[in-house]
């Protein structure tokens, strides 16, 4: 009986694992096959990879999309971490009732659905388009700016700052460091893991972001990777092999980040809940 139950558990887990992994296997296999073979359900790797890559890079501007996505993700990650950690540190180290009240108000913004603020944001950037062109609609900065200040990361850094030894702040003051100096020279280096975890989440969110770029970026040369894939997928006569190649390229950075930094990855997710 017990053995039978064990077998059942393994069977259940194996099916679950197969279902989870299968789409990945399928996209990697399909990347190497012709479009016809993909539609016919071929599940064996083929020899069409270079052809698919060639067609992809010749017919759509993948390079531009990769460059745009990289610029947006890197700048977003940097600013998100800087602003989020400054605030999280500020709220925890210079704690006061007034700041706690503000903190709670900021947390409320996590409940605001993006769809509700999307239109006013679009109009806001539309309004400044003529006076501040580099910040208007269809600019990378407009795609970046509204996403860099989030209550989630302020909360995340505050939670983690609770575990930071506050004596180090006093020690820094004794050594005559300025308050900002303490932050950059003491806090930042000791909180490396927290920053790593936050960087992973911020990068992935930005790399995969779809709705806001879809709204604010309009010209083809501003396209990001998710926009490119969405457009490819919506085509009437899709070349499946080529599209799968594009999807693999889009998934590669986040998958690599996951496999290389699995520990930080999970820690990052959990960091927001514990404490």
């Amino acid at each position: 009986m017990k053995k039978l139950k064990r077998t059942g558990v393994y069977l259940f887990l194996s099916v679950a694992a197969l279902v989870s992994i299968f789409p990945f296997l399928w996209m990697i296999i399909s990347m190497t096959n012709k479009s016809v073979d993909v539609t016919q359900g071929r599940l064996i790797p083929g020899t069409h990879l270079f052809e698919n890559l060639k067609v992809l890079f010749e017919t759509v501007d993948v390079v531009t999309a990769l460059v745009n996505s990289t610029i947006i993700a890197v700048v977003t990650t940097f600013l998100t971490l800087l602003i989020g950690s400054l605030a999280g540190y500020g709220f925890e180290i210079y704690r006061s009732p007034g700041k706690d009240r503000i903190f709670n108000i900021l947390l409320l913004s996590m409940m605001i659905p993006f769809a509700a603020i999307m239109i006013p944001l679009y109009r806001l950037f539309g309004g400044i388009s003529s006076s501040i062109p580099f910040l208007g609609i269809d600019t990378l900065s407009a795609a970046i700016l509204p996403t860099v200040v989030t209550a989630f990361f302020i909360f995340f850094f505050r939670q983690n700052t609770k575990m930071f030894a506050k004596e180090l702040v006093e020690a820094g003051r004794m050594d005559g460091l300025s308050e900002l100096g303490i932050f950059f020279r003491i806090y930042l280096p000791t909180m490396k893991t927290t920053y790593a975890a936050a960087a992973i989440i911020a990068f992935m969110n930005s790399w995969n972001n779809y709705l806001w770029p879809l709204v604010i970026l309009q010209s083809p040369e501003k396209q990001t990777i998710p926009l490119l894939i969405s457009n490819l997928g919506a085509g009437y006569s899709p070349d499946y092999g080529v599209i799968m190649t594009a999807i693999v390229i889009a998934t590669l950075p986040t998958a690599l980040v996951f496999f290389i930094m699995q520990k930080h990855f999970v820690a990052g997710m959990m960091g927001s809940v514990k404490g």
Partner: protein
Amino acid sequence: MSNSMESTSSAYVEKSKNKSTRRWFKKNYIGWLFILIAVIGIGIFYFYPMLRALLLSFQSGMGANLEYVGLDNYMRLFGDPTFIAALTNTFIYLLVQVPVMIILALVFSVILNDATLKFRGFFRTAIFLPCVTSLVAYAVIFKYLFGVDGLINQGLLSLSLISEPLNWLADPVLAKITIILAITWRWTGYNMIFYLSALQNVDKSMYEAAKIDGASSIQRFFYITVPMLKPIILFTSIMSTIGTLQIFDEIMNITNGGPGNATLSISMYIYNLSFKYTPDFGYAATVSYVIVILVVLFSLIQFKVAGDDK
């Protein structure tokens, strides 16, 4: 002499008091500087647009020509079949998908928490893996998998589970099922990780004691695991609810809202109203406030339900 000493010492006290006040003031003022950018940023990019959306929801007109129309937009909601369809669909996703996913994630986490299980790491990684894909990428893959001549139909046909290909994306019910399966695939592992980590803090001796008392594994699940994980279950169900109420990427890329409006979600309707048809920002803002109200409402309900039997 003593007098002068007294005066110097009192001056010293005065001075140091002054200094410490100044220091206290400086420290506090610096504290505010640390949070300044974040406070301004959230004000400009969250609360200000929220306010603008509220004002917009009382206005109507095409493009930039807006005028105040009072509650007209809110009245319009009740007689708008597309809105009703979007609202119904979103509710179906929410009420079917979130419970199914949370139960599935709990089951996985309990099974995978068993230290005697072989290949634990592999199973955990495999089930978590869907989380690394972007929503757009996996949506496009699901669209192809569930196509008429897609792999799902081919598989079902070869297993003789169906006699002719199902038109997953063109049938109103099957299309909804496809969306629900897709979201469940993407997010179950994500929720599982939260439960797995929470299970680390559950005292193992409780399970041992229950076992000795003859509790079955199902009883242990409902009487120990679920109550112990209640706070985290509450947290994840609120997060999933907020996420599902806003669902957009999957709908847009798997079914584009179709067939008809059978899979249209509220967020997608807002997008269509603002950017696909002639822009009607006022009415779109009204629809968006429905999501705001629902998010608040559902969060309150979930808190209430979780808090009831304390």
